């Protein structure tokens, strides 16, 4: 049974045959129904014949049910499912660059430590660090960073995995 969460924010996980044009076809399904894709992660699976796509998008739930079905219907899509927060774990990786003077660096490092973010580059007047976590954790961190000069943020987009022995 297709379970669609009732909010407007959705994450769909697709297992697709590793063939040319799959991404184009999936993108067309979303754009036709006016869904804005927030993030899209495409990556290899443990089986070279298939790829994993994780798509986060905004739109109303009834249209999403249709989108999931229309993705499933594509010949190269093996499985398309939406995962709710309760049954899946989510994670996202981001690189964040903050322009910062020496004097305030310590203050920043304390915050990063709290979020278990790792600094991976420090110069006289900048810091790059790596953050992993849920969307919510990212939002909280960004709120804390609002008093610093955030120069840029590059996020991978959300990936999810079904809990327990259930497959994604």
């Amino acid at each position, binding site marked *: 049974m297709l379970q669609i969460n009732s909010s407007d924010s959705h994450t769909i996980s697709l297992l697709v045959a590793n063939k040319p044009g799959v991404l184009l076809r999936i993108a067309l399904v979303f754009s036709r129904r006016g869904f804005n894709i927030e993030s899209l992660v495409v990556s290899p699976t443990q089986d070279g014949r298939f790829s994993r796509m994780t798509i986060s998008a905004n739109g109303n739930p009834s249209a999403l*049910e*249709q989108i999931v*079905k229309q993705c499933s*219907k594509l010949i190269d899509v093996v499985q398309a499912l939406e995962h709710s927060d309760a049954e899946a774990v989510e994670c996202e990786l981001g690189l964040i660059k903050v322009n910062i003077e020496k004097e305030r660096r310590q203050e920043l490092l304390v915050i990063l430590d709290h979020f278990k973010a790792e600094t991976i580059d420090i110069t006289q007047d900048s810091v790059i660090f790596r953050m992993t976590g849920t969307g919510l954790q990212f939002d909280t961190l960004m709120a804390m960073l609002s008093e610093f000069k955030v120069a840029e943020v590059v996020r991978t987009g959300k990936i999810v995995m079904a809990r327990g022995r259930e497959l994604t």
Partner: protein
Amino acid sequence: MSKKSINGAEALIKCLENKGVEYIFGYPGGAAIPIFDALVDSKIKLILTRHEQGATHMADGYARATGKVGVVLVTSGPGATNTVTGIFTAQMDSVPMLVLTGQTITPALGKDAFQEADVFGITAPLVKHSYLVKNPNDIPRVVEESFYIASTGRPGPVLIDLPKDITSAVCTAALTNSEMDLPGYSLPKDPTDAELDAFAAVFKGSKKPLLLIGHGAVISRAAKEVKQLAELLCAPVTTTILAKGIFPEDHELSLGFLGMHGTAYANMAVSECDLIFSIGSRWDDRITPAKIERFCPTAKKLHIDIDPAEINKILVPDASIVGDAKAILKRLIPRLKPLKTQDWIDTVVRNKKRYPLKYKIHGGLHAQHVLSEMNELTNGNAIVTTDVGQHQMWAAQFFNFNLPDRWLTSGGAGTMGFGFPSAIGAQFGCPNDVVVAVVGDGGFQMTECELSTAAIHKLPIKILIIDNKYLGMVRQWQELFYDDRLSGVDLVGNPDFVKLGEAYGIKGFRIKRPADVKRILKRALDYNEGPCIIHAEVVKEGNVFPMIPAGGAASDMVIEAPKRKMEKPQGST
């Protein structure tokens, strides 16, 4: 023992032969020459059309009339883009079709090479599936998969883009028994007994059931089961315009087709039923209101469809099953009991008598008169194709069929230009049948270049042109909803269609007076040496009724020409 090596194009054609392809409808060009070359030594008959759009509609008509996959072959660039309308038409009506497009050589892809178009990209939203072949050894597998995909489940068009270097290169792959690699494609599982029991339980207590039969039931060849079901339940049957004939239209329980220009009594039954059971119809906007809550508000809704994406798309039914109509009905029927519908049948039959489809036989020549006479003379046996417009709706109203597969019309796409070439395809597929193409003066001119194709092959198609000297359907809307401010609908300057036919060596007949209708149609039907044109010059300003304004519900139906001005409709077209 070394076998002569073959190239990709020869492998392709051999594979098509193995699939039983009899005809390819096509038009050549540089990038497709290797494939045309391979056809020289093939038993497959190449039908050279006069435009690629015509080729697609011919393949479509062939497929609809025979149930086999229709095959199209064109060149790259403009040749391929000319097939877009035909691919869309086939996709909207779930018609199995294979479109082979030549393509520039693979090293030139993406470099704006001569006649390079991104055909894979352009057609992606319009096909069931598509391929861009980059290795000649993939050809046998791709053909195997394409036929399987095009013709199973919910059928549809499949496109194979074939770069010229690939069709020219040696193919060493085995041509038979190629293994398909389709991990993402499966047909629906059979429903469980429990699902069927639960579905059957919904019928209980219904006093006013209505069966709504769609094209899915035609594709599934479920005519016998539909009749059994209707007679068992004592339930009246209405069909979508595409499914005309799936249930005998002369049956007491038949209400003809429903929807925008459907019969008054079918639409009344939709308003009044307490249960509606769609078998392979997708609740399309020609038969349901824009505000879906207004559709049969108090009726239980049941839906079976082979395409899971159709379930809950337009409305959420009380019960649904995904699967093949025929297979499901076979298992559902034994679970059902006759319903107490006598009062309902009385009402429905009374409505049939009270609100019949009518037309005038005086005050000029009326299209309905011509079509109705043609119906009598062909007696439901001819294959009738139509174009799109008023004549299409009148043909749907005044032709009656007792068999499916007799009636070919562009439903979902509403493609003008479809009627005549689809008749050519149907006649190739069914050489012993009488084929009538009912076309408007507007739509016929979109694909009339195929007169050559029909003439060369001496196909005895009756091309019945309903000439009202207008883009009549649009004119009707402008008259009814836009204060008769006609804009872009006057077809002044139409050719003399009989003379046009003569230029191609085609026999012509002309009907101008009501008194001549029967006699001239008879003569045309007796003429079988080749195609003939029947030019019916009908009154210019006839309108199609009944009519449910676009977006409206069955209860908004206008049975006869209204005296008052009508509100602009809410739906799009």
